[in-house]
């Protein structure tokens, strides 16, 4: 293999490729970045055995060939080289890759060629165009609710499925649920009836790869593929096959009769919660919402050592509920994902799910479970006889 490339042409792809491989641990073949010179291009390939990245970059191919090098070293070397042409040449024994630029020469040991496994090809035929920044936004709006672990009540996966005319993307962690809906007939038509599940760790990597540009999306039986519009780079990840919890069971509660509705200014509420969080402790991380005074929402928190905070603000309220408590930090994070100036809380009870929506946040719903209200008695006196 002998190929000439410019550093500018390959550095971004090389970085994406290096992002996937394990930094230190893992089998040597997984730490390898594969370089293939063919048809006027240098293909850079890497995998962590689940995710796969393939990028193809303009190059002057003097001699075709394939080799694998220790990915992290190769990336670090190219990163530290100045702009300009870089020559990559495999020595006749195939044991060493010579990297040269002007008067600089480096030798990198190569990986065993038999370690190379063909990468999954972007499926020919059906694929759809999608917006990279829209997918990024979708991920942002539900990812914070995706559980870190698979449990009975939650799943460490982002879920996407077609429902009637729409596509729903969900995240669930047992206490919070986020769901974003959108209309895209092409994507909807491509999704299998049971939907697709993408593991949390893969979503993180996908987000790193995505840009604001258009992307092509394809789904095979086992993998989800993304490709840049110029078809130079593709990124694929394995799909998971589990039964996603039936979220309709608690989403449905929001439309039952008798629910209470609270409307508040998002900015004012967020600022108040941020101040109140100062009074939270590890043992008491909630803010109490007092709803008894018409037109007014009173927020309270107190801790044994931290003191007490009370703030009142204007709010619209209709319903029977008198008091409810939410984890302050979680609620703050949720509010941060809404664009609407006003948010609506649909309250199904002091211990029932609470749905949060906003007028300017069409098809976006976050459900948060309240905290169990424990009335603690700090002082008690015996009644005198």
């Amino acid at each position: 293999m002998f190929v000439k490339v410019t550093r500018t042409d390959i550095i971004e792809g090389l970085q994406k490729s290096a992002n996937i491989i394990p930094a230190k641990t893992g089998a040597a073949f997984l730490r390898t970045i594969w370089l293939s010179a063919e048809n006027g291009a240098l293909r850079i390939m890497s995998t962590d055995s689940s995710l796969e990245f393939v990028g193809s970059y303009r190059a002057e191919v003097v001699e075709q060939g394939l080799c694998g090098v220790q990915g992290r070293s190769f990336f670090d070397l190219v990163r530290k080289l100045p702009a300009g042409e870089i020559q990559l040449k495999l020595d006749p024994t195939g044991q060493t890759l010579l990297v040269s630029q002007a008067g600089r020469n480096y030798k990198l040991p190569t990986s065993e060629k038999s370690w190379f496994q063909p990468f999954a090809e972007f499926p020919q035929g059906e694929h759809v165009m999608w917006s990279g920044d829209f997918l990024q936004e979708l991920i942002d709006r539900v990812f914070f609710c995706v559980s870190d672990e698979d449990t009975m009540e939650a799943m460490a996966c982002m879920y996407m499925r077609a429902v009637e005319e729409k596509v729903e993307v969900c995240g669930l962690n047992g206490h919070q649920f986020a769901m974003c809906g959108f209309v895209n007939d092409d994507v909807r038509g491509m999704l299998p009836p049971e939907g697709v599940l993408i593991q949390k760790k893969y979503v993180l990597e996908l987000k790193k790869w995505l840009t604001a540009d258009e992307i092509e999306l394809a789904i095979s039986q086992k993998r989800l593929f993304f490709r840049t519009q110029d078809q130079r780079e593709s990124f694929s990840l394995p799909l998971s096959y589990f039964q996603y919890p039936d979220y309709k069971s608690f989403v449905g509660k929001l439309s039952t009769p008798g629910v209470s509705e609270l409307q508040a200014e998002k900015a004012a509420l967020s600022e108040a919660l941020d101040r109140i969080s100062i009074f939270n402790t590890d043992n008491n991380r909630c803010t109490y919402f007092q709803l008894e005074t018409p037109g007014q929402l009173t927020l309270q928190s107190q801790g044994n050592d931290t003191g007490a905070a009370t703030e009142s603000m204007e709010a619209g309220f209709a319903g029977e509920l008198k008091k409810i408590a939410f984890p302050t930090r979680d609620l703050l994070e949720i509010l941060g994902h809404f664009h609407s100036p006003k948010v609506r809380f649909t309250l199904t009870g002091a211990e029932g799910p609470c749905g949060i929506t906003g007028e300017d946040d069409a098809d976006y719903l976050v459900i948060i479970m309240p905290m169990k209200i424990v009335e603690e008695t700090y002082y008690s006196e015996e009644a005198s006889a």
Partner: protein
Amino acid sequence: MDSAKRILHVDMDAFFASVEQLDDPSLRGKPVIVGKGDRGVVSAASYEARVYGVRSAMPVVQARKLCPQGIFVGGRMSRYAEVSRQVMAVLGEFSPLVEQASVDEAYVDITGTRTLFGPPRKLAEALQARVREATGLSCSVGVAPVKFLAKIASDFRKPSGVTIIEPEDVAAFLQDLPVGKIPGVGGKTLPRLAQLGVRTCGEVLRYSRQFWEEHLGEWGRVLHQRAQGLGSAELTPHSEMKSSSAENTFAKDVSDEEELKRWLLRQSERVGRDLRKHGLQGRTVTLKLKFEDFKHITRSRTLAEPIDTDLEIFRTACDLLDQTERRKRIRLIGVGVSNFGGGSAQLSLMPDENRERLKRLDKAVDSIRDRHGRSLIKRGKLFEGDQ
């Protein structure tokens, strides 16, 4: 009036072994070693055994080699706890500010007690006499302006010693004190200090605080402070239970997963029972493993909700075990629950109805065991291991 802080540290002399000698007169004057079996470690050694080089935390098998004539006894934690309570009660006679550091150690803030008990030495001697009177045991006492110095001082003249470090004597005391005496300076730090030619606390001060921070990070700053005699003098009286745990050292190293899980189940039952007895629930479950090469690791998981049921503790511990790479056989396994907080918990979107059933089951089993003993009722899974 002398307003400088005075912290007193009490350390019971060879506590477990002394209790054994106290309760069994035939053991008095003999090398008694608390720790049985070939796999365990020495919990305590009487001064007669220490002559042979036997020390706490040493493998029992090594202690046997050093002191073949030693009398090895199993520990009786409930009895030690009983005597410990008596000791703590005595300490409370001298000051309301007592912080129990462990079953056989405590700090007492004796600031401002001179009018009542006289100077620190007189108080220390009176305290030793009262402890002996109440329990029949001896203790060593150190008095200093801060806690860590008081602890070093109590260890200075063991057994039955009293060492007083007045504020004006701190610098002189530390000047030639081996740096290894500072709590926290151990196996990892000592060789690094030796490389820098630092063997005493006085030599630590040859370098600046910045130097130590650069070399040892946050711990470097603490070391520099301690070498000057600076440290905490704040006591936390009545320290509440912070965790509950159970562990076992095996008679023979184990690699069989099923057997390890059976032990985890037994231990989860012990921890769960302890939590329920104290009305506590914890969010963090910790698995402890010691491998055949004596390396030990811990793996913890913090749950969204606090738990106290045997099966929830067990399942979390099993998950942690499943996720732990085990290339070597296991010598010790243990499980613990911590991160208690009586405070509020966030409710679940899909409540686990099974949890209530588990709670009821534990309650029923607890009540049967309270009435008829532990062995009357046992989980089926544990019968397999007994066959």
